């Protein structure tokens, strides 16, 4: 425990230390892939982009490094960070380590939005936008549904969320059922399993704006999450407008999750596992928990995506990998961690 206290006191330096492996992995990721490029060539190509030196880089290599690997690397880090920080904030908001933004229906809503777009044979960009909007819509429905009941509590919100989630889950199943089994169905199934294979710079830019805004908001209000996680009444006596704060957190987390899902499909476990790992390292203080979740989430999904795109000649769907690696890891953590909630 004393170690964790020490860590908490030196939050800045801990964050700094954790960034180092992320930076290393970031550079290594440029060297990993199915298209064989010698590391030296990658180095030359990147340097020649930054400085006006005359390098002989083939157009194919340029495409691979800057059009394929670069967007994917940034997308993986962005999505991993977004899902993790949203998970951490949600767990704090609900004071429950098992809640993740999916529980309000955002993932199922986005999945349905994507399936719907695939059904009408839309292009990749439209699929992404449709997923984003339906994800947001699903949570909006959940939120206003829960507001109609008297004595609104967070529990009501989650219960409504579970209902909306299963409702959209049924709509996804329905769209699979009516899809053309030879063309659209495999596409829907692949999308739902999660992949960053078709990410391009344009798509990345579209989602990076809401993701960066959402993250910034959560980082700015992170100390208030500490107040919230004491409980609503205590927070109110301290003069915090809990209702408004809860709304801000829910909206931010939903935007983060919907944006992530819209670009890469449904990726589970990250929002659940990474905040736990972060809590084990630095304890429950949100002031440091959120930045650390961001770093760890970016690291974890980048690692998973590197495996997904380079291990076999086939893309391994991300959702499968995160669950296969995430679930045992989570169980291992449960064994290791004594209560780190207090």
């Amino acid at each position, binding site marked *: 425990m004393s170690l964790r206290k020490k860590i908490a006191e030196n939050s800045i330096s801990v964050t700094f230390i954790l960034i180092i492996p992320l930076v290393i992995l970031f550079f290594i990721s440029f060297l990993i892939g199915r*298209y*064989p490029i010698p590391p030296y060539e990658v180095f030359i190509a990147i340097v020649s982009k930054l400085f006006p030196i005359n390098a002989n880089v083939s*157009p194919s290599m340029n495409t691979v490094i800057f059009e394929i690997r670069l967007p994917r690397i940034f997308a993986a880090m962005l999505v991993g960070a977004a899902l993790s920080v949203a998970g951490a904030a949600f767990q704090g908001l609900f004071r429950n380590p098992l809640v993740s933004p999916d529980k309000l229906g955002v993932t199922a809503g986005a999945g349905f939005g994507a399936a719907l777009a695939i059904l009408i044979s839309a292009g990749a960009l439209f699929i992404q936008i449709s997923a984003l909007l339906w994800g947001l819509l699903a949570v909006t429905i959940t939120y206003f549904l829960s507001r109609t009941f008297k004595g609104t509590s967070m529990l009501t919100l989650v219960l409504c969320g579970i209902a909306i989630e299963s409702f959209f889950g049924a709509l996804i199943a329905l769209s699979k059922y009516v899809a053309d089994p030879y063309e659209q169905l*495999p*596409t829907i199934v692949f999308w739902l399993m999660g992949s960053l294979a078709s990410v391009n710079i344009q798509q990345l830019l579209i989602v990076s704006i809401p993701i960066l805004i959402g993250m910034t908001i959560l980082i700015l209000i992170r100390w208030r999450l500490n107040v919230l996680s004491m409980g609503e009444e205590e927070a109110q006596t301290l003069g915090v407008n809990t209702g408004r704060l809860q709304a801000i957190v829910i909206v931010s987390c939903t935007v983060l999750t919907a944006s992530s899902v819209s670009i890469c499909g449904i990726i589970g476990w990250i929002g659940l596992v990474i905040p736990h790992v972060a809590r084990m390292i630095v304890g429950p203080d949100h002031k440091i928990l959120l930045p650390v979740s961001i770093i760890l989430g970016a690291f974890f999904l980048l690692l998973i995506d590197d495996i997904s795109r380079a291990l076999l*000649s*086939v893309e391994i769907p991300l959702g499968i990998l995160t669950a296969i690696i995430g679930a045992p890891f989570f169980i291992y953590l449960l064994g290791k961690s004594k209560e780190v909630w207090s």
Partner: protein
Amino acid sequence: MNNKKIVIISLIGIIVVIGTLYVYTHYNTDNSSISEGHISDMGGRSVQIPPQINKIASLSYSVTVEIYMLAPDKLVGWDSNRTTAENLYMPIKYQNLPIMGGGKKDANYETYLSKDPDVVFVGHGGSIDDINKLQEKLGSVPLLDVEGDNNITSLPESIKFLGTALGENEKSIELISFYDNVLNKVNSTSSTIPDTEKKRVYYARDSTGLMTNPEGSTHTQLIELSGGINVAQVPLTKGSIGVSMEQILDWNPDVIIASDPSFYNNVYSNPLWQNVKAVKDKQVYLVPNSPFNWFEGPPGANTIIGIPWTAKVLYPDKFKDIDLKNLTKEYYSNFYHFNLTDDQVYNILSSSGLKEF
């Protein structure tokens, strides 16, 4: 003692009888012969069928296509949805046939029965038990199993069987001889191409182009048949697989065959695909899709016309002797019951990306 002996002997007798029946029903795959109203289907089941067959239904897409080719007026409905694009080259009266919702597992048997078919067909791959279970659901309507309907190499057997069962022998012989003709034409040339000169082909599915079917899948048989090599050689799976853009650049195929119009329309302007050899050489082709897909989607008798098409796509110079325009016309009027105008043939072939046909 005696009682025991009698019991044992009778038990042995029963076992022998049951065993013989079992062997008889499971190994009697003596293909399709009609005798006294009984036909033995391709699963080896002996089924009684009515003397006059006027209404036919099918639970499987590839069999539906074959029925449409042999006896369109007897077909009572489609087993799956048809889009406007697919209906472009199909007579209105067949477009208007009802959608019955097929698929072995999720067919609505009441819908099937309400159409009062004389016989129902089910396609490849079911075990005898599965087929008998389906037969129970159809009650007194005879269900016949067809095999080989989804594999380009075994199509003739399935066509021949359907011809026998439907009393459309003449039409089935005509279709088989068309098949033999194009197959032999293509094979005689493609079999002489040395491995070193073979074109390397990537089959791009869906709007991203990042899904494909690997070598050995029935979905990409036409590539090997025409003397091409499928670049996706993956030991893992025969179904649809996702691949990364990087992997495609590494494979660097000579030719890309695309199933999705939106992918085809964007591929030449998409910066990621610019460095793929097929795109550089303007060797991307779009599979024609009306009234049925030419390449797969799913594989079946609909891909017979895809044999010469794929050959022309891969080796336009080697297959100069194939007159694809006339073959297409003949095939459409004889088997798709649609007389194409010269403009329509030209349209189908040129919008698939072919320069000479």
